[in-house]
């Protein structure tokens, strides 16, 4: 904490460029000349690579540049004066390109003044568009390198050859016209680069002030601070140096030898050898995976991890430490359900609550509470793990010092206290594909070891409880906590920005229970009503009048009870999923259309489970199903969010789910194999349907074989036959399903689930009770396997229904071995599809995120990239936030009209 105070600055902008030799010397704290680290006593050698002016890593020493100790001194750069310049490998290709583009005599770019003017203009037009800019620079290079006579000074030019990694040749001609190759040493290259005038640099893709080309040839080498290449003391007490330090020792050793040889006037050949060796060491120091260069290795044979290796790859600085990093104040464990907590709460195990802390500033209002917590210490909940004094010193609380710290505690201190009920935390489940994957919850500290969450938030996280784990993060500042509270709490995400409807809502038993509660004829006694309302947490003073009294017993209808949860004044009507007979809805619809707010008694006479009518917060007709408060199409929930706010919607959802759960647990709800029992009469009818279908298929096959089948337009004869057979068989299954449906009514739990949308489809029931029907691969009947048949149990060429994957049995009656195999074939396709789809959509998602992550909506409503390039002139063309939209549309005009009419009526 303390060291941070000395360097509190805000980054305004970042510019990338090449360090000039002057800059390297200016930022250097010391010139390094000695190719060694520590002396025999283990003390840093002056002028060596661990020089104390570069910072210290030994706890006892002080930095000679800033005077600070280990951990406080950030470290300082040093430098090495190279005896001879060397190429920076990272720029080797760029250097080649620049040399090719410029004159070997005068250094100008080999373009005519006219071309220069032209390209400058184009460059301006291109602006910050990287792709277009790179293309233009490439084009300029191509044009300039072709010029064999300088357009400025008229000097003849020679072609250049580049030999990886750092060797350049000039293909010259002698007086006789014979070609010969001249090796250009870094000194010569540097001279040529120096001659290039500043004004030509933009055309080479360089910024004259930030990156002069000659800086790509190193004359001075920066030595990174000791703190970025600390030595490690092994258990055996031996010091192991960092790979970078090893490499720098090599560079210094050769550099010194080269220097003495030059000073001693050694032969050119020896000097060039040493020079090349220095080049090798500097090259591998920068990138030890340069192609064409044998990597420098440790004594053990392990390749050294040098500068480029620190940055590159998944565990490199960028992907491993900047794009993604490890964080503190986070927890992860298995999740399990808890229907009793609110949707915006999360159950946190006590053990985690005692590990995670929130820094709370001590004020006169909370000092007593915090003192108590400090006194409790780290091992007694609710306690604290650290205190921070006004000087910013962080003191760990222990059993031994907690009394003393509690005593010293005063206003101005900060206490890192245990997590308490009501603290705001972020809750997350991978893969975090949309923004609802991280939402803010309020803490409920609980026993046991799992995170608990309300079932209604399973859909946004896509969570279930078969072993899923989730992450939890504790925001540490008031700003972060406030942001999380305002923007990220669960209730703010009930409406999904994906389709402008609720993504959080009742699921499964919430729906079934809602139906059991509100269907026609559902009545409850006083004791039941009192219990369920208490369970749901509905706070009312007095029950409404009972709906009926029978034999002196009072009864309330489920609709009356449900109405207690609805906001006052809510009026809405819609046809729900249970409406299978529109003629039963029409009279009510007409009545409402005529009178808008018809007499409740009149409505009750027409009441139909398939048509919901809520008048002023009273459910008068219709049963609750998925369309009421389910995800995706929960109309009532949707309206409450929009017209009564998210907090009211949260309360409604909390209460209604609990109410439904009470009803379903007390009324009893189960589905078993007898839910698929059909009377013999029904089974006979189904058998007859199958028999008829098979017969029709056989007739089609015979017609085909006799050549009497008329091909459908655009199809071959075979395709015609196939599609006709498929149609016949599909119809057969549908008819069989309808028969099954006729015999299974709303007293059947499986049917209740299917019809209300709680779980499953009618098709699933059909497949269990009647027959599975046609199995298919890629939309075709099964046909692959043996020659002319799928299985050897059939005759070759058999095109009949059963030979091509039509399953006449149901899950309940049991499949024949052949049918079982067909089913496995069809099932395999589904598995492969999901596997392929997740892989493909994952890749697509990554590409989209990479392309779109930096776009933002500006205050003027435009969508721009970080450089200000406009992508859309108005966000989404209409400027509408999809989360605030109505099913993606700006407004729900009909609802606006209805509300206006209702308001008008209320005034009258």
């Amino acid at each position, binding site marked *: 904490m303390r060291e941070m105070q000395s360097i509190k600055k805000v980054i305004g902008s970042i510019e990338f460029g090449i360090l000039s030799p002057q800059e390297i010397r200016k930022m250097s704290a010391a010139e390094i000349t000695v190719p060694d680290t520590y002396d025999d006593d283990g003390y840093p050698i002056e002028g060596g690579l661990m020089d104390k002016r570069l910072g210290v890593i030994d706890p006892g020493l002080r930095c000679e540049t800033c005077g600070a100790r280990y951990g406080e001194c950030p470290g300082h750069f040093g430098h090495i004066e190279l005896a001879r310049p060397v190429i920076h490998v990272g720029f080797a290709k760029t250097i080649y390109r620049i040399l090719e583009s410029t004159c070997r005599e005068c250094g100008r770019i080999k373009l005519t003044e006219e071309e220069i003017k032209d390209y400058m203009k184009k460059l301006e037009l291109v602006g910050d568009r990287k792709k277009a800019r790179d293309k233009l620079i490439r084009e300029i290079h191509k044009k300039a390198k072709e010029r064999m006579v300088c357009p400025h000074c008229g000097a003849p030019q020679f072609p250049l050859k580049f030999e990886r990694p750092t060797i350049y040749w000039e293909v010259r001609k002698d007086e006789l016209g014979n070609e010969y190759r001249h090796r250009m040493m870094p000194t010569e290259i540097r001279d040529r680069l120096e001659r290039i005038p500043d004004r030509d640099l933009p055309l080479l893709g360089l910024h004259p002030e930030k990156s002069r080309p000659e800086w790509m040839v190193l004359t001075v080498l920066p030595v990174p601070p000791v703190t970025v290449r600390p030595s490690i003391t092994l258990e055996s007490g031996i010091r192991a140096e960092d790979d970078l330090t090893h490499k720098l020792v090599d560079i210094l050793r050769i550099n010194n030898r080269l220097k003495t040889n030059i000073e001693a006037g050694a032969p050119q050949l020896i000097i060039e050898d040493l020079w090349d060796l220095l080049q090798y060491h500097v090259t591998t120091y920068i990138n030890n995976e340069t192609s064409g260069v044998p990597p420098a290795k440790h004594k053990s044979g392990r390749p050294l991890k040098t500068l480029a290796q620190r940055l590159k790859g998944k565990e490199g600085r960028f992907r491993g430490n900047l794009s993604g990093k490890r964080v503190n104040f986070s927890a992860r464990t298995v999740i399990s359900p808890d229907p009793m907590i609110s949707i915006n709460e999360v159950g946190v195990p006590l053990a985690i609550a005692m590990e995670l802390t929130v820094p709370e500033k001590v004020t006169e209002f909370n000092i007593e509470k915090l003192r108590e917590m400090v006194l409790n210490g780290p091992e007694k909940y609710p306690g604290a793990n650290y205190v921070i004094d006004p000087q910013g010193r962080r003191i760990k609380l222990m059993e031994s010092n907690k009394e003393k710290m509690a005593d010293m505690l005063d206003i101005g201190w900060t206490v890192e206290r245990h997590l308490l009920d009501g603290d705001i935390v972020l809750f997350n489940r991978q893969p975090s594909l949309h923004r609802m994957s991280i939402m803010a919850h309020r803490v409920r500290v609980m026993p046991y070891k799992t995170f608990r969450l309300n079932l209604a938030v399973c859909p946004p996280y896509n969570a279930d409880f078969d072993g899923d784990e989730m992450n939890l993060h504790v925001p540490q500042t008031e700003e972060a906590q406030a942001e999380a509270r305002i923007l990220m709490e669960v209730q703010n995400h009930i409406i999904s920005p994906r389709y402008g409807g609720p993504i959080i809502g009742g699921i499964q038993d919430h729906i079934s229970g809602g139906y059991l509660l509100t269907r026609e004829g559902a009545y409850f006694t006083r004791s039941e009503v009192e219990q369920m309302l208490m369970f749901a947490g509905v706070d009312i003073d007095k029950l409404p009048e009972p709906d009926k009294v029978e034999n002196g017993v009072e009864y309330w209808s489920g609709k009356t009870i449900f109405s207690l949860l609805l906001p006052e004044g809510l009026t809405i009507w819609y046809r729900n999923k249970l409406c299978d007979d529109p003629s039963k809805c029409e009279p009510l619809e007409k009545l409402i259309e005529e009178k808008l707010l018809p007499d409740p008694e009149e409505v009750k006479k027409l009441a139909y489970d398939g048509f919901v009518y809520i008048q002023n917060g009273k459910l008068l007709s219709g049963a609750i199903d998925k369309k009421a408060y389910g995800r995706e199409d929960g109309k009532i929930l949707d309206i409450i969010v929009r017209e009564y706010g998210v907090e009211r919607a949260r309360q409604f959802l909390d209460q209604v789910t609990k109410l439904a759960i009470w009803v379903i647990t007390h009324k009893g709800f189960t589905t078993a194999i007898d839910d698929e029992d059909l009377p013999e009469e029904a089974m006979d009818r189904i058998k007859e349907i199958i028999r008829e279908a098979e017969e029709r298929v056989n007739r089609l096959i015979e017609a085909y074989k006799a050549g009497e089948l008329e091909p459908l337009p655009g199809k071959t004869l075979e395709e015609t036959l196939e599609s006709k057979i498929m149609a016949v068989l599909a119809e057969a299954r549908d008819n069989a399903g309808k028969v099954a449906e006729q015999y299974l009514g709303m007293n059947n739990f499986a049917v209740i689930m299917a019809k209300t949308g709680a779980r499953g489809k009618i098709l699933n029931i059909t497949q269990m009770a009647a027959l599975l029907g046609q199995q298919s691969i890629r939309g075709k009947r099964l046909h692959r396997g043996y020659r002319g048949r799928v299985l050897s149990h059939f005759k070759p060429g058999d095109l009949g229904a059963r030979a091509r994957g039509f399953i006449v049995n149901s899950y309940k009656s049991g499949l024949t071995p052949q049918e079982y195999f067909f089913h496995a074939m069809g099932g395999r396709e589904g598995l492969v599809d999901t596997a392929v789809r997740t892989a493909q959509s994952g890749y697509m998602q990554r590409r989209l995120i990479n392309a779109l992550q930096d776009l933002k909506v500006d205050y*003027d409503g435009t969508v721009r990239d970080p450089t200000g390039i406009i992508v859309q002139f108005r966000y989404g063309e209409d400027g509408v936030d999809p989360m605030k939209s109505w099913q993606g549309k700006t407004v729900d005009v009909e609802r606006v009209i209805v509300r206006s009419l209702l308001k008008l009526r209320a005034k009258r």
Partner: protein
Amino acid sequence: MAAKKGFNIFAHELVPEHRILSEEEKEELLKKYKIKISQLPQIKAKDPAVQALGAKPGDIIEIKRKSPTAGVYYYYRIVVED
């Protein structure tokens, strides 16, 4: 280069209306969004619609599109060389 004889791309229902902005309109647009020319979306000079209009690099094209969300939506693109 004029459009091919007998075929007017703007008559096709999938091709939105294109229009070259006048100098004043150009000025106004850049001022309205506080942008440089280089921050506009681009359209290539060889684009059939640009060729049919006879627009040159540096011109700004206004495209009037039908939008499922907003009804009508105007988009502006700067003509650039290919």
